[in-house]
């Protein structure tokens, strides 16, 4: 099978809806400057495949929803006291952010996948809302996570093992991981 394309809606740094197709290419490179959103695109792929969020760099699933408008006031968390006013216009994160009228309340990522033995492609969609709940759909019909994962496993997309994803900064660890960790990986794959 092959990945035909993706659609992102309010996912991380991607406001509104964006689509990308891979066409006939089986070697596609993603390029752009630092901070442009390349790793966020990989996060989108991992997200739609059902990868658990601790790998996605965000401490909470709600952090994956696009946030654009700068809010006034001082949204510092906890007891940290700021020494400067110079960054009053930037935020620590969404823990204390109140969701204004204009911020999106949900985000989704869809991937369109062509199975070898079917004519029609299969669409996998995962939606997240501000309460942190994920909804999984196959061809726009809601399914359980178990069913979603089984469908992917039947295509050798082993989300638990993640043996086809290498996150930024992670590659050397594959070689230097401890022996027990390598055993675990082989177990997950078999």
């Amino acid at each position, binding site marked *: *099978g*092959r*990945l035909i394309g993706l659609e992102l809606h309010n996912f*991380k*740094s*991607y*406001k509104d809806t964006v689509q*990308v*197709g*891979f*066409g*006939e*290419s*089986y*070697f*596609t*490179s*993603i*390029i*752009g*400057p630092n*901070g*442009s*959103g*390349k*790793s966020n*695109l*990989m996060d989108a*792929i*991992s997200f739609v495949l059902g990868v658990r969020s601790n790998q996605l760099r965000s401490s909470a699933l709600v952090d994956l929803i*696009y946030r*654009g408008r700068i809010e006034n006031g001082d949204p510092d968390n906890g007891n940290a006291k700021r020494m400067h006013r110079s960054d009053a216009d930037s935020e620590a994160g969404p823990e204390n952010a109140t969701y204004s009228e204009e911020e999106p309340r949900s985000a989704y990522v869809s991937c369109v*996948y062509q199975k*070898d033995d079917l004519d029609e492609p299969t669409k996998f969609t995962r939606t997240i809302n501000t309460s942190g709940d994920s909804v999984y759909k196959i061809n726009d019909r809601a399914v359980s996570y178990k069913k979603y994962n089984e469908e992917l496993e039947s*295509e*050798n997309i*082993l989300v638990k093992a993640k*043996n*086809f*994803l*290498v*996150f*930024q*900064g*992670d*590659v*050397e*660890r*594959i*070689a*230097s991981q401890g*022996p*027990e960790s*390598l*055993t675990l*990986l*082989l*177990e997950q*794959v*078999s």
Partner: protein
Amino acid sequence: RKELFEACFKHVDKHIDQIYRALTKNPHDKSELAGGNASLTVENEDEPYLGGIKYFATPPLKRFKDMEYLSGGEKTMAALALLFTINSYQPSPFFVLDEVDAALDITNVERIAHYIKRNANPNAQFIVISLKNAMFEKSQSLVGIFREQEDNSSRMVSLNLENYDED
């Protein structure tokens, strides 16, 4: 359980040296001697899934095989060989690699790009995030990401490289 694990282990053990050698020899070198060596050892012979599995790799013309002796770039090459070998047991339809070439010099970037190009096919799709020309200029298509400042949003454009002639 033991059978499943051993089937997977035997496959990886059988192919790791060949794949590591393919990655570490010069792209146009056809000789059998070129490239490094890699191997696995089991700590618990009878019940391998209960013990650890150690991975060793010796770069071409080098002496040591412990990971502790490998440089940053050498470790990356060894890691990619192991990753590709493990994946080949139950090949996934696509790979997503984020800046795996960060520690590689230009010769090693070319080796990886060359390996991907040779192995990519309709059932093995490679999606590679890279800052290095030597990597992305070998791909069939590019997805360019940029920030739309006024909109405070990331945007994407696609470019099919095969529409351009090779010079």
